[in-house]
Structures are given as C-alpha cells and as structure tokens.
C-alpha cells in the first residue's frame, strides 16, 4: 500500500529525479575529465534542458505526492519553470564569465552545486508540509553558502560566504522554532491540516502570532526582506556575479513561492463565501497580511534609500533587488487572486531584466576589471550595444514604459487599487520615483560623461552578443505584447487543496 503510493509518486517526481541524476553525473565527470572544464558544463546544461522538458510535461497536473509532502500543481510548475530557465541562463553566464573560468579551480563542483541548488528550489516551490519547507530551504541555502565563497582567491568572497551562513543559520533557527510552536498548537505539519486545525479550534492567539513572526523571519531571509536583509548586499558584492544573479532571481522566486503557498493554504478562511470572486479572507481576524504590509513598506523604502549611496554597481543592484522584493510583497498583502497573479507576472519580467542587468555588469567587469559606477563613464560610446542594453534593463527595473518592467508594476498597482490599499500604492509609487534617481546616475555616467584616462573600447564576442539579445528582446517585447504572460500567470494560480 505504502510502496504503491511511493512508486506512483515517483512517476510525478521526474524533474527532481533528473536533477539528482544531473548532479551526480556532473560531479563524477569532473573526476574523469579533469582537463576539460567544458564537459561538466555541457552535462549540467543538457541535464537542465531535460529538466525543463520534464517540468513542461507536468503542466496541468494538480495533486500531491509522497503522502501530501509535495504539491505538483500549476503554481509549483510555474515556479519550477522560472527556476529552470534562470539556471539555464546562469550556466551560460558561467561559461562566458572570465571570473568563473579563471579563478574557480573545481568547475565540476561549481556546476554540480548549481544543479543541487535548483533541486532545493524545486522542493521549495512544491513544499506542502513544513518539513519539506525546511528541507528545501536548507538544501538551497547550503549549496548557495558554498557557491558564494567559491572563488577562494578573493578574500571578500569567503567573507561574504561567512556572513551568509551566519545570517542564514540564525534565520533558519528562528523559523524552525516558529514551526515547533505551530506544531505544538496544531499537532500537524501539513499545510491543509494546519488550516483545518487553526480554523476549527482557535489556538492561543499570542502563540500563533509569535510562531508566524518567527516563520516570516525564515521567509524574509530567503526573499531578502528588511530586517532580514543584512546578508544581501555583502553576499551580492562578494560572490561571483553569476551566483549573485542566480540568488537574486531564482532563490527569491523559490522563497516567494513558498511564502505564498504557506500563507494562502494555511491562513485563509475557506468557509467565508460572501466575498467578491478572487478575494480571500484571513482566519478570524488574524491579519497576517498587515504584518507583510509593514515588511513590504520597510523593504522597499530601505532598499531604495540605501541604493542611492552605493558606488559599486553590484551592490546597487543588490539594494534594488531588496526593493523589488518589497514591491512583490505588496501583491500578497492585498489577499486577492489578482495580486498573486501580478506577483507571478512580475517574476517573469524580473527574470529577464534582472539577469540582463547582472549579465552586463559581468561582461563589463570581465573587460575593465571594475564594478564601480565610475568605470561606466562613457560606456555608451565605448560599447554602444552594452550601454543601450544596460539602459533598457535599468529603465525596465524602474518600471517605465515601453519596457516589460512597466507591465509588471502596472498589474501590481492595479491589484492594490482594486483592493483599496491606496496608501500602500502611494508608498510604492514614491519608491519607484526614488529608484529612478539612482538608476539615472548610471545612465548619466554611461552617456553624458567622458571616460577618464584612456577610453578603451569594450568589445564582446558574437556568442555573448546573442545571449545579451536573448535577454534584451523579451524585456522590450513583453512591454508591448503581454497578454500571453497575463494568461499564464492567471492559469498558474491553482494550488492543490485551495478552492
């Protein structure tokens, strides 16, 4: 009985199985083909392509596997897709990155750990039980601690790694303590059972609040929300650019997936029917969305204000990614399907614009050896394509038309106004204006300032140009033609066990 259920579950566990196989094969290939670093890279890439295929096969599935531990539903499949596409881009970035290719000695382990991290994020996206939540988060975190410090020669890399693991371990400790209190209150770890237990017997309200705040600490660390963001700037600056880009998109997406599923499945009152379609009610006045609203305001305000003072572009993008986590939290605060769909849509857009911005930083840093904003002076003339591309990515991150970032923000703000969260929308709008200021500093350096010293032209190869265009074209195209994305986001809202 147990065995048949496990065997049946494995049939819907194909993407994760492929990832595990890719991890093992990549690791072993590094031992066999010692002198050929391209072999593990190619194996990891092919493995991720097979994973993408397996994820696409899961489209339309809506069930739980392994006795309710993991959910395979359109929501999980959407985030697995985001993670897989990001991983494919990161593997290509790593292949082109001089920093990774020259200073990493054991490249096979580097690629293997990237696939291990992808596996952890798949488990986070599907976690339907607090045990799975912890395991997925820890697998992702442990791989990323190692990857953040992978360029051992750079001392700020291992420093970043140490800061990362201390904050990471602290917040996973806080989260686990929250989970243990929640288990004590309800006697269960599964999301659906938690919802029934809390809805049927009102537990100690204060203990529930403390447990929720502690669990939010764990989520907040993963999505780098203030005040759990302290690791973000240091790790983003110290880690290799490829890993920074990976953390800023995939890890954040997986953290958001877990957060949204946890709150939507556990803390929504499914018995309230007198609501307009697509709106939800929180359980008996336990207004967890107010907690997230506070978090959202703090996150975007601090992210944007501190970004103004940064001189290192990687660090600036780190603070901008903190601010983006704040914008995306707004979509969850409103308690509506529209808000959630807006967050999903934002992630598709964010994937292209943020990876694009980090890719340009990587290409420029590999050629000029500097990530300072000052070294971007005159870039628009030294490398016109790079300069224009960077400008478009930054405009998109600001959220101005005609780029994809505008569409993402538009739907977020529409959802906010729809649910009458006017003050939050105003705070969000003010923050977007602040963000324009520091992004504009980069434009000014690229196009209006003359380069200091000798103005060496920066040139990139043909393959790098193609990859840049693959990121650039969607950023522009999705700003004009976005209805398929909206449909995809709306179709991906289905979570197992939620009406």
């Amino acid at each position, binding site marked *: 009985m147990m065995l048949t259920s496990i065997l049946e579950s494995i049939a819907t566990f194909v993407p994760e199985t492929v990832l595990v196989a890719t991890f093992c094969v990549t690791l072993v290939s590094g031992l066999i083909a010692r002198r050929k670093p391209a072999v593990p890279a190619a194996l990891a890439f092919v493995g991720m392509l097979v994973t993408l295929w397996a994820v696409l096969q899961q489209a339309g599935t809506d069930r739980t596997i392994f006795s309710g531990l993991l959910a395979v539903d359109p929501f999980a499949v959407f985030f697995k897709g985001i993670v897989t596409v990001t991983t494919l881009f990161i593997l290509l970035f790593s292949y082109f990155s001089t920093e990774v290719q020259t200073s990493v000695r054991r490249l096979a382990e580097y690629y293997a750990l990237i696939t291990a991290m992808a596996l952890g994020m798949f488990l986070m996206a599907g976690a339907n039980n*607090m*045990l799975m939540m*912890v*395991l997925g988060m*820890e697998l992702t975190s*442990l791989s990323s*601690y*190692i990857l953040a*410090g992978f360029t*051992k020669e750079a*001392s*700020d890399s*291992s*420093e*970043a*790694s*140490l*800061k990362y*693991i*201390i904050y990471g*371990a*602290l917040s*996973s*400790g*806080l989260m*686990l*303590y929250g*989970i*243990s*209190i929640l*288990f*004590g209150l309800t*006697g*269960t*770890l599964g999301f659906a059972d938690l919802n029934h237990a809390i809805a049927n017997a009102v537990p100690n309200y204060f203990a529930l609040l403390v447990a929720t705040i502690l669990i939010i600490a764990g989520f907040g660390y993963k999505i780098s929300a203030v005040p759990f963001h302290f690791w973000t*700037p*240091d790790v983003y*600056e*110290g880690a290799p650019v490829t890993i920074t880009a990976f953390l800023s998109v995939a890890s954040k997406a997986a953290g958001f997936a877990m957060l949204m599923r946890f709150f939507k499945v556990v803390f929504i009152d499914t018995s309230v029917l007198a609501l307009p379609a697509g709106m939800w009610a929180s359980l008996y006045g336990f207004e967890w969305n107010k907690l997230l609203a506070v978090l959202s305001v703090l996150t975007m305000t601090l992210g944007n204000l*501190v970004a103004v*003072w940064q001189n290192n572009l990687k660090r600036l993008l780190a603070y901008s990614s903190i601010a983006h986590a704040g914008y995306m939290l707004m979509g969850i605060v409103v308690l509506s399907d529209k808000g959630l769909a807006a967050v999903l849509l934002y992630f598709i857009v964010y994937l292209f614009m943020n990876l694009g911005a980090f890719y340009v930083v990587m290409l420029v840093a590999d050629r000029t050896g500097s990530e300072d904003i000052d070294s971007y002076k005159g870039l628009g003339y030294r490398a016109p394509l790079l300069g224009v591309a960077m400008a478009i990515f930054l405009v998109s991150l600001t959220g101005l038309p005609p780029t994809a970032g505008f569409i993402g923000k538009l739907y977020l703000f529409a959802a906010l106004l729809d649910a009458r969260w006017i003050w939050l929308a105003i705070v969000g709008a003010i923050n977007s204006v602040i963000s324009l200021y520091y992004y504009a500093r980069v434009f000014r350096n690229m196009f209006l300032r003359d380069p200091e010293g000798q103005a060496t032209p920066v040139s990139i190869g043909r393959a790098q140009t193609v990859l840049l265009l693959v990121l650039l074209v969607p950023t522009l195209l999705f700003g004009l033609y976005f209805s398929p994305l909206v449909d995809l986001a709306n179709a991906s809202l289905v979570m197992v066990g939620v009406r």
Partner: protein
Amino acid sequence: MVTLTSYLILSAAMFIIGATGVLVRRNAIIVFMSIELMLNSVNLTLVAFSAFLGDSTGQALVFFVMTVAAAEAAVGLAIVIALFRRKQTVNLDEINILKW
C-alpha cells in the same frame, strides 16, 4: 512535577541564550555553537510537544533538524577555515571589508 510547560520554558531559555549568542559574540566558532544551541532548543520543543500530543510527526522532524544542523556546521566550519587561512582571525569584527 515535570510538565510540558517546564520543557517549553527550558527550551525557550535555551533558544534565547542561543539567539543572544549569535548576535553579541564576536568569535565565529562561538557563533556557530550558539546556532547549535538554538537548533537543539527547537528539537527539545518538538520532542516535548510530540510526546505530549502523542503524535510522532514532531519526532520525525527532529531527525531532519539534526541532519541539517550537522550539514550546516560542516559547511560553516569549512568556510571559517577558508577565511582563517587568508586573514588569520576568526573574530567577526576584523572581517569587515564589506559593509553598508
């Protein structure tokens, strides 16, 4: 008499000591020890609740927490060693190239 409350008070105390240790101690090794203390207070809470509720799910989670703690300690100490080779220190105040 030893009741559930006694266990919970003990584990809360352990948790607070651990969390304080992470925040105030400046030696990386002691910080990792404090993290272990936090995770073990979680285990104590889970086992106590599990025994009190007569539900073994909590004890299953404890096994995973122990595994995670071991993995985290291994990675953490490896990182401390990598950093010590460069800087000859495990004092967190002296590890500060990166800030605000």
